[in-house]
């Protein structure tokens, strides 16, 4: 048991079953002390239930939860040094802001509660609102009060349950930066639950992508994006073009060849090939593809749609075997191609990821940001 630090949060084979379904299915993970960790997934994937079990608001059906060496599985929420920023903030409407922030300190009989609460409010830049009541503050301000109310107790783990969900886009971006600044300032372990992949990518050091009560992949944002371990992760985080192909021949010089349905040979990095699998999906992100260009892999197609978004243009290109691929071309001044144009789509070997073809190509693709 030496593989964890003194303040790490460990979930061991945690399962939570409700009457009719299993919300969390045998999850094990270790979250190092001081890290910014995100649980990412569509609604109903079990991420909030996982969070609530860490907070003590739900009891796991099986498994155990440790903070450092202390088993907290059976502890009540008020016995755990864990605090939550709730999705709806859950500020106490009958108390003013400073009393809201000081609630936990006074509950623990901290004699210095006044100064600490004021400091926490100052940290979120709301020191001047101490005497106001929650309904008098805007959503963004209430969110920061909720954060201060949790932070001020210096918990071992701070839980954030979609805390930015109710804010508009601009405020959300601002709060993302703010949260990250505060987290690095205070050095607490943050666990952030979200369904917004961009939010998770910008903020977290490590992300666990959850689907149907299980962890699909646990990795840093770059790995998740560049080397998704399943079609669900490939589709849920950004867009992916998945081309069915068959491994052809043995790899040489670190490169392998796969053959598409149409008989086109594609060159891929041999290390990307999953062992022992011949039927594969070759995945390429839209921005790795070039129209025209002299990449090693080339496929012919026809432009069927072009939409200009300012920084880039997104093209749909239909391949001869009726498969449409998405190509995102940076607005680098090269001009826009018309619909109906014959084009070559190209990319360099090694920019792909490869998955087992037995996985559903559409998994995770239909899920929107609510």
């Amino acid at each position, binding site marked *: 048991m030496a593989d964890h630090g003194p303040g790490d949060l460990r979930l061991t084979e945690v399962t939570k079953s409700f009457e009719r379904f299993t919300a969390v299915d045998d999850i094990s993970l270790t979250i190092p002390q001081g890290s910014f960790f995100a649980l990412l997934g569509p609604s109903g994937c079990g991420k909030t239930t996982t969070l609530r079990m860490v*907070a*003590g*608001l739900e009891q796991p059906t099986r498994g155990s939860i440790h903070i450092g060496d202390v088993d907290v599985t059976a502890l*009540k*929420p*008020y016995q755990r040094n*864990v*605090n*939550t920023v*709730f999705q*709806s903030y*859950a*500020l*106490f*409407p*009958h108390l*003013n802001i400073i009393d809201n922030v000081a*609630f*936990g300190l006074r*509950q*623990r009989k901290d004699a210095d509660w006044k100064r600490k609460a004021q400091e926490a409010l100052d940290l979120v830049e709301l020191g001047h609102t101490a*005497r*106001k*009541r929650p309904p*008098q503050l805007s959503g963004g301000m209430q969110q920061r009060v909720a954060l201060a*109310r*949790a932070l001020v*107790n210096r918990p071992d783990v701070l839980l954030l349950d979609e805390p930015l969900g109710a804010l508009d886009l601009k405020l959300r971006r601002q709060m993302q930066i703010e949260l990250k600044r505060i987290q690095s300032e205070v050095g607490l372990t943050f666990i952030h639950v979200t369904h917004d992949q961009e939010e998770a990518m910008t903020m977290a050091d490590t992300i666990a992508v959850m689907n149907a009560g299980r962890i699909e992949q646990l990795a840093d944002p770059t790995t998740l994006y560049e080397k998704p371990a399943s079609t669900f992760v490939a589709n849920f985080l950004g867009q992916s073009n998945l081309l069915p192909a068959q491994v052809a021949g043995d790899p040489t010089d670190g490169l392998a060849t796969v053959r598409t349905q149409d008989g086109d040979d594609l060159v891929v990095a041999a290390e990307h090939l999953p062992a022992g699998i011949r039927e594969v999906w070759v995945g390429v992100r839209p921005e790795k593809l070039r129209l025209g260009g002299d990449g090693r892999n080339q496929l012919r197609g026809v432009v069927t749609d072009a939409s200009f978004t300012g920084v880039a243009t997104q093209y749909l290109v239909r391949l001869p075997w009726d498969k449409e691929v998405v190509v995102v071309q940076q607005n680098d001044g090269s001009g826009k191609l018309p619909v109906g144009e014959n084009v070559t789509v190209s990319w360099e070997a090694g920019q792909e990821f490869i998955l087992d073809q037995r996985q559903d190509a559409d998994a995770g693709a239909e899920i929107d940001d609510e």
Partner: protein
Amino acid sequence: MTWIRRHLVIVIGLLVMAYILLPNLVVLAYSFNKPNGRLNITWQQFSLDAWLHPCNSPGICTSVGLSLKIGIIASLTATVLGTLVAFALGRHRFRGRAGTNLLIFMPMATPEVVMGSSLLTLFIALGVGTGQTTILIAHIMFCLSFVVVTVKARIASLDPRLEEAAADLYANPLQAFRRVTFPLVAPGIAAGAMLAFSLSFDDYIITNFNASPSSVTFPMYIWGAAQRGVPVQVNVIGSIMFLGAVAFVAFGQVLASRRERAGTA
């Protein structure tokens, strides 16, 4: 025309206010009357007699005292019991919950005559003599329903996450109740208690069935007096009740707005 269109809401509002308040004002005005004989229905001359001697009519102050006593005991008991019932119904799922809900609703739906007479039948069958105790039992019963309904509505509007937040911030269930749940439900409890008191204070029908000649409440006294001509003192006590209620509400408003302003400052 445009003037009417612009001020229509205010005009109608004032008319409705007049419609509601006029009877009270008539009662107030006639409390200063000095009637010629028994009937206090035509204006004779201004007098402070009744205001200076409000008890100067046989039995009137005893009946007011009894009504106050019954009102306070019944509303307090019903508030305590009703709040407990409301929490049980609002927060817990248990066998017989639907039945309890129905039972609580029954006294509000049943005509008072039916309830009063069946209670009397019950007391006679049990061999219990009617009087203050039976009046109290009857009042607590119907007040309970109103308290439960009022408090339950308040509990239902409470965000359950607030209690989770309290628990998350180290409050055990008892502390969470004292510091979060109770203060937030308190306005509902107060409203229920006031409703219960006023219902108890002016109930006539149920009370009349379950009273004895020695337990005459204020509404019963007025009814009895009305046969012979209502004494001016009834107007005085009615006016005091009315003004007291207005003052109570006004005080509450002032308190609330001052609190609001303290929050903004």
